[in-house]
């Protein structure tokens, strides 16, 4: 059997957020499908869509629906073939003993967030409760959550699998209020699997094989968490094991939430995706709503039998 | 009158500076060894010796720039001192002009005055007045790289003269000057010396110059340098230019030349040739 070379570009460095892919690689699932896969980590200012569009990488686990829409809007020929996190992976966090106890309390307070989509989610949440986003002091969020821990800001944005762990450690899980976008009717699925239009059109079977192996890897990772963490820790020994274990548990929640629970891993929830599309168009991030069916192609993931995709 | 020097000193004529057992070693090179000399106040002493024998090294020590090897004795006005005590106490003209390339003629000349704290404008005025005497009139605003070799030397000389100290060390100050400029500078030096009663040590290669100027001529040996001969010059002052043809002068010159040549020969491996 001829092996095909391919690469997967992640959105960030090696960590449990991507455990399934590493497990599949380690266990030889890609090899079994005839793919000689290289996993390339991501980094700040490294746009996965860009690398996939130019052909530098075959597959990409990119930022999320937001980055896919932005890329499509700018004419990058990428297609999403699966969505990992079925619900918004980040939450807004305030101190339990602080002034912010509800989304309405954000008014007149300081909130920090990432100006790459999360800010629009925040704006939408605020609008839903009748607070004008301009009444909240929304500031760019830096790498550290210390300003929040030190109560210099009232609300901080945290990914469930990453920042939340740090905040829990430093403030205490029980001293925090979490504001979940879905509770306000806003959804922003992230961690999208993408390929270029060329690959989608010319090598559909490669895409399918890749998906099959990846899904298998993820199921294995969730079935055998400590082994999955071992694999990650071997690659990045300086990571904190407890944090990685936390991350894998949270990622599991995110990947199996919503449509993920019924339609399996990497299912594409057109409704959730569509609402993100409208949100971004409304806030002018993209010039006009992107044509959904061209940007999101569920046919590859759906070609895998449902029982193979469900946990 | 200085110059007519008794060899054994009067009690009140304590040496201005007295050196005993001065040696100086650079790595493997012994530049000076057990040099002994004393200079009385107001004397004009000239120093001759073969090239590389340690004359400049001696001056560096007297200017306080170089410590001699341990075990030396150095007395300034009878007070035992280290070389560094002499810093700022002698006006020193080094063999290479060492003009600062970013200062023009006038500002190079006033360098020492500035260091002393004299206001620039005043120092410049003083120096401007001296320019014609040094044949540098009109060149005050030139930079060193625009000067001829002799002009550079004259600027360095001016800088030294402007720094008024009891002891003046001049290392081949007239080396790059033509005969007349040199004569004028010599006359000028004698003027300054007599008027201001400065003590002068003067290195030269020119035996005529050494005799013409000096109260005493020190002849140094080849490296390692020592004083080979201290020759008093008992010619009356003021000396005229034609003194060089007098029999006393010629006799002195002969003595000195013999002493120097004997030493210079040692510097060369002339055996085989």
């Amino acid at each position, binding site marked *: 059997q001829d092996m095909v070379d391919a690469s997967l570009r992640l959105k960030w460095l090696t960590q449990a957020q991507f455990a399934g892919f590493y497990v599949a690689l380690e266990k030889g699932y890609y090899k079994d499908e005839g793919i000689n896969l290289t996993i390339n980590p991501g980094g*700040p*200012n490294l*746009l996965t*869509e*860009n690398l996939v*569009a*130019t052909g530098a990488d075959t597959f990409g686990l990119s*930022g999320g629906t937001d*980055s896919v829409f*932005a*890329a499509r*809007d*700018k*004419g*990058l020929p990428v297609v999403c073939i699966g969505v990992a996190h079925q619900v918004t992976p980040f939450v807004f966090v305030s101190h339990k003993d602080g002034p912010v106890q509800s989304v309405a309390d954000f008014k007149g307070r300081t909130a920090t967030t990432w*100006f*790459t989509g999360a800010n629009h989610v925040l704006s939408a949440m605020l609008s839903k409760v009748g607070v004008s986003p301009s009444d909240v002091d929304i*500031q*760019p*969020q*830096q*790498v*550290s959550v*210390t*300003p929040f821990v030190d109560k210099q800001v009232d609300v901080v944005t945290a990914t469930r699998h990453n920042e939340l762990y740090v905040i829990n450690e430093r403030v205490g899980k029980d001293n925090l209020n979490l504001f979940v976008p879905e509770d306000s009717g806003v959804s922003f699925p992230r961690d999208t699997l993408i390929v270029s239009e060329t690959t989608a059109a010319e090598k559909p079977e490669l895409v399918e094989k890749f998906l099959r192996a990846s899904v298998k890897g993820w199921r294995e990772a969730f079935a055998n968490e400590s082994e999955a963490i071992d694999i990650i820790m071997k690659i990045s020994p300086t990571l904190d094991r407890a944090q990685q274990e936390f991350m894998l548990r949270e990622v599991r929640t995110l990947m199996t939430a919503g449509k993920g629970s019924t339609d399996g891993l990497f299912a594409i929830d057109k409704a959730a995706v569509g609402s993100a599309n409208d949100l971004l168009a409304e806030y002018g*991030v993209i010039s006009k709503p992107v044509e959904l069916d061209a940007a999101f192609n569920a046919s590859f993931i759906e070609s895998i039998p449902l029982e193979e995709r469900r946990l | 009158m200085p110059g007519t020097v008794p060899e054994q000193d009067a009690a009140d004529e304590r040496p201005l500076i007295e050196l005993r057992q001065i040696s100086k070693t650079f790595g493997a090179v012994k530049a000076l060894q057990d040099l002994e000399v004393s200079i009385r106040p107001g004397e004009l002493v000239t120093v001759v010796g073969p090239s590389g024998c340690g004359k400049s090294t001696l001056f*560096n020590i007297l*200017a*306080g*720039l170089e410590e001699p090897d341990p075990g030396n004795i150095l007395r300034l006005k009878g007070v035992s001192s280290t070389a560094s005590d002499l*810093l*700022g*106490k*002698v*006006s*020193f003209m*080094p063999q*290479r002009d*060492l003009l*600062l*390339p*970013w200062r023009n003629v006038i500002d190079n000349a006033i*360098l*020492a005055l*500035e*260091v*002393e704290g004299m206001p620039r404008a005043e120092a410049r005025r003083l120096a401007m007045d001296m320019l014609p005497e040094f044949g540098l009139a009109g060149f005050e605003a030139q*930079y060193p*790289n625009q000067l001829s070799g002799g002009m550079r030397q004259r600027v360095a000389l001016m800088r030294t003269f402007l*720094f008024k100290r009891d002891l003046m060390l001049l290392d081949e100050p007239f080396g790059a000057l033509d005969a007349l400029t040199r004569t004028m500078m010599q006359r000028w030096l004698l003027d300054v010396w007599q008027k201001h009663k400065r003590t002068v040590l003067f290195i030269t290669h020119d035996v005529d110059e050494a005799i013409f100027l000096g109260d005493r001529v020190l002849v140094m040996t080849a490296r390692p340098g020592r004083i080979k001969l201290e020759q008093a010059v008992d010619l009356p002052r003021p000396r005229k230019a034609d003194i060089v043809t007098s029999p006393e002068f010629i006799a002195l010159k002969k003595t000195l030349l013999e002493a120097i040549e004997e030493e210079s020969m040692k510097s060369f491996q002339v055996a085989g040739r």
Partner: protein
Amino acid sequence: MTASISSDSARQISRGIGGALLVAVVWELCARGLDLPAYVLPAISSILAGLANDAGSLLAAARFTATESLAGYAIGCLAGMAAAVLVTMVPSARSVVVPLATAINSVPVVAYSPLVLLWFGIGMASKVVMVAIAVSFTIFLSTIAGLDRVDRKSVDLLRSFGAGRLAVLWRLRLPTALPLIIAGMRVSTVRSVIVAIVTEMLGAYGGLGWVIYQAVLQVDFVKVWAAIIVASAISLAFFGAISFVERRYVFWR
């Protein structure tokens, strides 16, 4: 003399512009001729169009970044020179200060950014500090090298005039060091802008780095390039200003 300097610089500026035009034309031809997509290399014409489009926000960002770089640059230059002078005046400080400075500088400034952001916040202060750190070392190194470069015989001469360390420093070492100090200052101009930008990328309220960071994530490469052109213009102006000062004050070579 002044006339020749100005005709010299007129020629240099026109040639510089010529060089820039040449590169711009080649760039435009490449981008258009090879039909490169914007995410690989946008054509210079579309960058300029984007520049005009976003002129307002880019200008505001430029002012932000320029302020940070200038403030950091000034502090860095002074600190670097002061440390170098200190080390020259107090030789025993040398074996402590030099390795310490080397160690601090050996760490890429970006590594300090999380700490500096932590200590000085996400505002301008942290950028100023980062720029100052980066600049001060360059200046420090250049200044020490310059101060040490003096002809020992000239130092001796000044000492024979009774000059103390301070006078030697002022009248000899500093003028001797000036060419190297200014060369260091020239190199630092560029570095100060880039460090401000890079730090902004890691967290800021505004500035060109912030614009670039946002634009990358929004896949707006025309905007990225437009911001970079503005950054280059700032650096070049800055560099040119220092070169001008250099030509004024280091004339004797």
